């Protein structure tokens, strides 16, 4: 089936679903969170290690629909190695994109910064699925908050 450009299911999404990145349990981590999306029964357990204001590593496990799993994979690629500030800024932009109801109003630079995550733009037209796309991003945000809020980790 040729993927229609209006489809929610861009090739990038399918590729990440089939071959997710950063999937697995981190042995060495500062925080772990478990998030659930009741709409699809999606689940993700996510661990982060934060060092010198950077997301040094992130690993996740979970199951659910392709949107939730692919989005978590894309998010991981984007934030691992970036500063906590940048990661949280990106999270805000992605949230904004998901709340756009199909009308991306991000600037060109912001759109570019989202890289592969922009493939989820079509999801924003389906309110029922927005939570799927946000699952991993929300988990990352709260994991980072608890890792950094935990204060001076060795």
């Amino acid at each position, binding site marked *: *089936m040729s993927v229609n450009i209006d489809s929610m299911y861009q090739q990038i999404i399918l590729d990440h679903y089939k071959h997710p990145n950063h999937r697995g349990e981190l042995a060495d981590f500062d925080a772990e969170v478990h998030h659930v999306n009741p709409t699809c029964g999606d689940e993700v357990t996510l661990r982060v290690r934060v060092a010198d204001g950077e997301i040094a590593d992130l690993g996740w496990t979970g199951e659910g629909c*392709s949107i939730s799993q692919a989005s978590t994979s894309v998010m991981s690629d984007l934030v691992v190695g970036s500063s906590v500030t940048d990661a949280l800024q990106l999270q805000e932009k992605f949230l904004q994109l998901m709340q756009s109801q199909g009308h991306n109003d991000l600037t060109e630079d912001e759109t570019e910064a989202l890289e592969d995550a922009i493939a989820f733009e079509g999801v924003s037209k389906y309110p029922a699925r927005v939570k799927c796309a946000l699952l991993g991003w929300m988990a990352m945000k709260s994991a980072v908050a608890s890792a950094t809020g935990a204060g001076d980790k060795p």
Partner: protein
Amino acid sequence: MFDVEVIRKDFPILSRQVHGVPLVYLDSANTSQKPQVVLDSLTDYYTSHNANVARAVHTLGSEATMLFEGARDKVAGFINAPRRDEVIFTKNSSEALNLVAYTLSNATSTPGAERFRVGPGDNIVVTEMEHHSNIVPWQLLAQRTGAEFRYIPIDDEGRLVDSLIDERVDDRTKVLAFVHQSNALGTVNNVERLVTRAKAVGALSVIDASQSAPHRPLDVQSLGADFVAFTGHKLYGPTGVGVLWGRYELLADLPPFLGGGEMIETVDMSGTTFAAPPHRFEAGTPMIAEAVGLGTAIDYLTAIGMDQVQAHEAQLTAYALDALAQVPALRVIGPSTPVDRGATISFTIKGIHPHDVSQLLDEQGIAVRAGHHCARPVCLRYGIPATTRASFGIYTTTSEIDALVAGVIKVQEMFS
């Protein structure tokens, strides 16, 4: 002669397109589409007859009352009720089932209603395949009264475990409530078996006929239960109207459900006496137009013949089960043969979440439902988060089933 192509022309929505392709509507178990005659009857009611019922003496008032009460007659005829005043209009099946559960707990403090009392030591039994609408009201009744809530489990094929019926339904059972046809599995339950058991132990039997009324002739006398509930919007009628049928001698002794206008006999500040059934259970201005619309839907179905509807759908079910069986990695959740099952087929596809399946089918114009279908215990039973469900109606064709199968295969190709 039943001709599906002729029937389709009666449903204007079936000619619309979604995402640039013709709509294939396979979600009738969720809600059915409405024929033009039903839409016209709503317009006609509001255009020419609108007034409140049972209170206005003017011409419009009596026309509205006649239309509304006429709809009650049509429902009574449709389900072969012995008396028209056994037909109570509710807003849907959920309200109909709640009506029974709440009047039973209201009976706790009503003189003359002792035989309906439910309390500690008693139990209320449902099945594992119920819609939440036929679970939650009973769980709440159990909570209010201290009775025990129980269920009859289902097996791997989506049938009730017959050997456990007599154990779960015992001489302390006050209510046995069960679905006629499961909305999640398609299973058609053996009503006679269950009602006979309920009678043997002196329990009230309540049938949730939401998914059978639209698909097969329904005769409350031959079903033999005490209460039968169904909902108008699945029966080609409007939303906002449902039906509770109850045996008159029970309704006559049951206390009210909601209080308000129309349900009283006399009111003074020291107390109130209540109207006879069905009005005792219909507080306030009812869903007049919707009831009239439901009456029209019933006329429409009666003209086609419910036995014809049943035969058409039996053929669709057999066709679809065969066709879906050819799809690799597809598992039907529910009976795999057309025996004692209705035209609602749930399935899972290995490696692809039902929400992805249904969304991708939607992109091809095919409307199915994905989720737990308000029967979450069924999903828990089979250890799955959700299913994809295709459900058929009088206007469904075998080529729509072909489209479904082709659509599912396309989805699999995308994910492979």
